[in-house]
């Protein structure tokens, strides 16, 4: 910009000359254009505050923006709140009704149970899917990532009709609300390698009672005399085709040797957290989840006569119910 001259016609140029005679004019942009540019720059600042685009969230509060009078005090936060209020208003009658209902009653009510099916997906994915897998398909704890502890499933598949603690909707609710932690002692010091081998082969074949060792070594205390498990203590049914942990002979041996939640460094781990204590979910949300999980297709039809507590304690009747055809 040292010299503004133009040899051709006295028009001001930037002073830079290329290829002998090429130069840039320093013509001002039109006034309307400059006004537009300035107005846009001011609008950026205004909109930044209005929107607001200020990322300052501390202690659960945040700047909610300043709405301009002409815009009906519009801010993006306000628009979001209005929109969510509309959604909440649609859901409110259902949510209110859910509060006073038992899980079984929700299940029996076609409308409510449909509402739970539709609205429970996000709840399940956020809180349960991490261990149980999306849609309850289970997630495998195998491969290089879990080299430390390869144990088959991380958490049970929720779609089948095999339940450690029972598949009635109330029992599922209890599992969510109070958590579960089964226990199987490590047998590596109690049983010989040959005994473990025999037992593992019998269990793998689905006939644990075929070997006398099953009763002699006290397996029946937890898994029952018929090996079908007890819902009261969450012991696995060893006669069916669903495996909580790795179902190969090697895998079964591993489970027998080191137990489940036994404290042994090699133990299988199976812990369902207590969601009441965790404080993340409301009672209504846990009810929703219970119904949602039940409706995956493996839920056990409610036993109409017996009260809930009795079902949980009376292992025999629970097993019976479990073998009944699944509802829904």
């Amino acid at each position, binding site marked *: 910009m040292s010299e503004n001259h133009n040899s051709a016609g006295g028009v001001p140029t930037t002073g830079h000359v290329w290829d002998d005679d090429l130069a840039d004019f320093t013509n001002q942009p039109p006034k309307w254009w400059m006004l537009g540019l300035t107005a846009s720059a001011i609008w950026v600042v205004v909109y930044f505050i209005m929107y607001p685009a200020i990322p300052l969230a501390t202690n659960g509060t945040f700047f909610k923006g300043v709405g301009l009078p002409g815009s009906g005090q519009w801010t993006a936060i306000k628009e979001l709140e209005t929109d969510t209020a509309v959604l909440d208003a649609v859901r409110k009658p259902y949510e209110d009704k859910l509060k006073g209902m038992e899980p079984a009653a929700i299940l029996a009510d076609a409308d409510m149970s449909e509402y739970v099916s539709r609205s429970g997906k996000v709840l399940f994915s956020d809180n349960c899917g991490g261990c149980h897998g999306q849609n309850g*398909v289970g997630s495998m704890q195998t491969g290089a990532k879990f080299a430390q502890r390869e144990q088959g499933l991380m958490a049970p598949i929720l*779609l*089948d009709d095999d339940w450690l603690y029972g598949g009635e909707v109330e029992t599922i609710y209890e599992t969510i609300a109070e958590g579960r932690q089964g226990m199987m002692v490590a047998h590596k010091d109690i049983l010989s390698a040959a005994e473990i081998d025999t037992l593992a082969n019998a269990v793998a074949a689905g006939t644990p009672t075929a070997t006398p060792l099953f009763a002699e070594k006290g397996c029946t205390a937890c898994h029952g005399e018929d090996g079908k498990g007890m819902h009261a203590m969450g012991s696995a049914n060893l006669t069916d*085709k*669903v495996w909580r942990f790795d179902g190969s002979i090697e895998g079964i041996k591993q489970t027998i040797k080191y137990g489940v939640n036994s404290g042994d460094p090699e133990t299988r781990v199976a812990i369902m957290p207590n969601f009441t204590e965790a404080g993340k979910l409301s009672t209504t949300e846990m009810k929703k989840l219970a119904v949602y999980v039940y409706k995956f297709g493996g839920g056990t039809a409610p036993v109409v006569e017996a009260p809930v507590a009795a079902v949980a304690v009376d292992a025999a009747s629970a097993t019976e119910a479990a073998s009944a055809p699944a509802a*829904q």
Partner: protein
Amino acid sequence: MSAQEQKPKQEVGQVTSLYNEHEEWSVNKGDKTIHAKRMPGRFRTFKNFTESLWLIFFLAPYIRWHGNQALLLDVNNRQFHFFNLTILPQDIWMVSLLLLLMAMTLFAATSVASRVFCGYFCFQSTWVDWFTWIEEKVEGNPNARVKLDTAPMSADKFRKKALKHTIWLLISVLTGISFTIWFEDAFVYWHNLMHFNLSIIEWATLIAFTFGTYLLAGFMREQVCMWLCPYCRIQAVMADSQTILPTYDEKRGEPRGRMRRGTAAANEAKLGDCIDCFQCVHVCPTGVDIREGQQIGCITCGLCIDACDSVMDKVGRPRGLIRYASLDEMSGKPVHKLYQHPRTWAYISIILLALGGIIYGLNHLGAMTMRVEPERQPLFVSMSDGSIQNKYNVKVLNKTGKDIQVVIRTENTLPGQVIVDADKKHLVHTGKETGFAVFIKVPRENLTSDVTKLRFNAVNVDDEKMKASYDSVFNGPKK
């Protein structure tokens, strides 16, 4: 100097001679209102008849059928009603076939006889025709109109102009109303309109259509055809050398010249049949001169043919100096018969396909439809007894007038297959689609393949004959 003067002449025949016609070239940019003369004739009568078909647009929404509007495109409730027929969104694919059908009909007609649509059916042409007819009734013939336009404002001019614009606006409002009542109940709409109780969308539609009609048909007129309408350009492409369109017979007409009394007979013999009376230009609604050949402004309405024929009758020469003729005919090539036009046949076959699809669709609307979506995550679940369970999300749409209950069955059966809760009745409300899950179990050993075809039926409990089917699959482990 002399060298400079000679330069343009040297360039005749060179590339730059292309630009010489620039001097004669004129474009109708709407700076002059075209006041076309109205003359009776064959094509005028035909045009009156075809334009009157638009009365359907105004009157049909008032037809009642079983207490409801017979023709109702009920977008709000997502239903189309045609007398007894109700079309729900699921059947809307037929609309695409209908659009195809209409487009191809336009193409076929254009390939045979050029812009038939523009000349005889187009709403723009029609409304403009009505508007100018009113203009003529109020303000008089074209000469009187030109005089009135240039005259200073007077009480008489104001009265005429006010009357004309009032009638134009009335037609425009009626157009807006008639458009809207195809989409909602006509009588309810009129009632609401009378009480000024329309929704924002209804007001916006009415105002947009009123002013759109008033502006396009009253003021822009042929400018719409020439500069706004895409069909004008599309249709021009459809015409080929076999297409017949209003053509000036140059060989017969040229050299044109006025008839003069007392001219030597020998001199007259040199002249062609065209007497250069400009009647064809005066009657043209878009103001083109057909003698310059086919052009974008020509909407092929045939009014110039009427005008020329009447003049030819008067001067005692044969009709048809301007007539529907093809380029082949004019350039002396053999004229093919209509059925020797492959392009038209291609259009007709597409029309027949679309028509076939629509007829099939209307015959297979069904009272009930179902869709079955197998669960994808997971594809199947192993149950405790070793059987494989599949989950299906079933949706049943009830197109009947009342609520129905359905049960789900399968048409073929896999060995040992169990539909969980097979007898469960599912309630489906009228006009609604209801979804529910269905579980099917099959013993693992009975499966011969990882994917087995399975056809589902939804059967109305009260009427076993009413059922819907859907083909799906049963998924199992890899074999």
